[in-house]
């Protein structure tokens, strides 16, 4: 809703648009609690929003004419507009491009897009960027100010602007998808909606010749491969099921096929495309294939290239897991320990896993440190079960005296 309102007012009034949107929802919750949900809730919401906007502009023009005694800039234009689906979908994408303005740093552009367009909370953005919420808050504040100072108006961008902003837009959609896919929330409905929203917007990009590029296709392929496992990734209680334990019959074959299709398109006839999306889509592709003798070697080589493009602790740990699959746990332990990510619970989980066959005592130690570091209750439960299994195994092999 904020998006449609912004399109109408221009980003200069972004905060007002945000306010009106939240006031509308507040009014809805008050009214619907008493009178029940109306037949067409969407239309109801937009009618209320429309009236609030009219009120706002009426007040504004009173203020501008009577108090500032000069005619308001917008008094002539008719503040009436359509809230239909077509406009919303276009608005959403147009707004992402608008917010990805070079007036701000790339990081700020993405923060802003995630907050205004994707409805992310400050905490969720901080999570996606692996930084503190205060940093994000300041960044958002500065970004909004600079857009306002730019007297920003949402207008159609020219070809060069669209092309130069595409990278940031792709990154935003990538983060939107990931938040849905890896989100800490257990509400599966929300997660699916975030994922399908990201897919929908990326799909829109492939329909426009300006944005229909190999990296866009690679990102879409990645989303398709990941989405194919959405159903298999969680049990009915909302707990995450690890890759190895997933029921592969639940994988969505048609999405895998679409992923293959977009991945082929993403190569554009030449194999020289090596964006992060290409590499990640490649990794996801190999995960969907049945065990092939060289599967993990391919995955490891893709991780080697991915980590050269962009370091992240998660990529480093995933790479080490692939290394273990190719060269065995013993060699991988040496690789893992070099990473020295002692404050990261996945680091201890990985080491726990790698030690579990040869040194259960060390494995238990690492799993216990992981339990101390993770916030997820599900993960704690899984790790505790694993520790119990290892303790029994250890006692069985080396029975304690008495």
């Amino acid at each position: 809703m904020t998006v449609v309102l912004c399109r109408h007012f221009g980003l200069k009034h972004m905060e007002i648009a945000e306010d009106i949107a939240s006031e509308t929802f507040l009014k809805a919750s008050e009214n619907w609690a008493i009178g029940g949900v109306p037949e067409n809730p969407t239309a109801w919401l937009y009618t209320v929003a429309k009236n609030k906007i009219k009120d706002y502009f009426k007040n504004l023009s009173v203020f501008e004419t009577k108090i500032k005694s000069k005619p308001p800039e917008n008094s002539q234009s008719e503040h009436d507009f359509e809230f239909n689906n077509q406009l919303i979908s276009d608005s959403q994408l147009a707004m992402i491009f608008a917010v990805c303005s070079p007036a701000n740093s790339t990081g700020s552009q993405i923060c802003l897009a995630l907050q205004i367009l994707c409805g992310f909370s400050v905490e969720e953005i901080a999570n996606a960027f692996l930084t503190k919420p205060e940093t994000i808050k300041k960044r958002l504040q500065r970004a909004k100010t600079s857009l306002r100072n730019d007297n920003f108006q949402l207008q159609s961008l020219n070809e060069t602007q669209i092309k130069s902003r595409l990278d940031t837009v792709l990154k935003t959609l990538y983060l939107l998808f990931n938040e849905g896919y890896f989100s800490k929330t257990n509400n599966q409905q929300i997660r699916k909606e975030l994922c399908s929203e990201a897919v929908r917007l990326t799909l829109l990009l492939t329909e426009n010749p300006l944005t229909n590029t190999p990296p866009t296709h690679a990102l879409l392929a990645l989303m398709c491969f990941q989405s194919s496992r959405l159903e298999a990734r969680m049990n009915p209680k909302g707990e995450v099921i690890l890759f190895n334990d997933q029921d592969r019959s639940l994988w969505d074959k048609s999405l895998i096929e679409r992923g293959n299709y977009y991945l082929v398109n993403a190569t554009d006839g030449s194999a020289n495309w090596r964006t992060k999306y290409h590499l990640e889509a490649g990794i996801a592709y190999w995960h969907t294939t049945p065990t092939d003798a060289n599967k993990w070697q391919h995955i490891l080589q893709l991780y080697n290239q991915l980590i050269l493009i962009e370091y992240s602790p998660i990529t480093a740990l995933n790479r080490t897991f692939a290394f273990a699959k190719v060269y065995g746990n013993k060699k991988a332990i040496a690789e893992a320990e070099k990473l020295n990510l002692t404050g990261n619970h996945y680091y201890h989980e990985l080491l726990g896993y790698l030690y579990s066959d040869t040194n259960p005592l060390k494995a238990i130690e690492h799993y216990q440190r992981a339990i101390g570091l993770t916030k997820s209750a599900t993960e704690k439960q899984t790790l505790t079960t694993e520790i119990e299994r290892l303790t029994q195994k250890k006692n069985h092999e080396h029975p304690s005296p008495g």
Partner: protein
Amino acid sequence: MKEFALIFRLNDMKDFQPSPEQMQERMNWLGSIAAQNKLADKGNTLLPIPGSAKTVKPDHVVTDGPYTEIKEFISGYIVVRTETIDEAVEIAKANPIFKIGGSIEVREVLKRD
């Protein structure tokens, strides 16, 4: 943190074109450094082949390649980010280049700016 250039030298031109297995080993080594967040620059390969290598000397004397007078030639470089030179040397030791008689020179980078 300091930065160190690792400069690779090979003795034999035929080692310059790695087999797929050798390539995997090299990439594993490079990926391992990057995974520790110690890769400052993934560097480049320097082509030693005729037409891609010349040496310019005083009085505009130009010779083909660097390999006419010395047997060893530089095949490439990367830059790592570590606390000490010893740590950079430890990283270098894990490189598969020693299996084919190559060597690595470790040099601290002094930034110009």
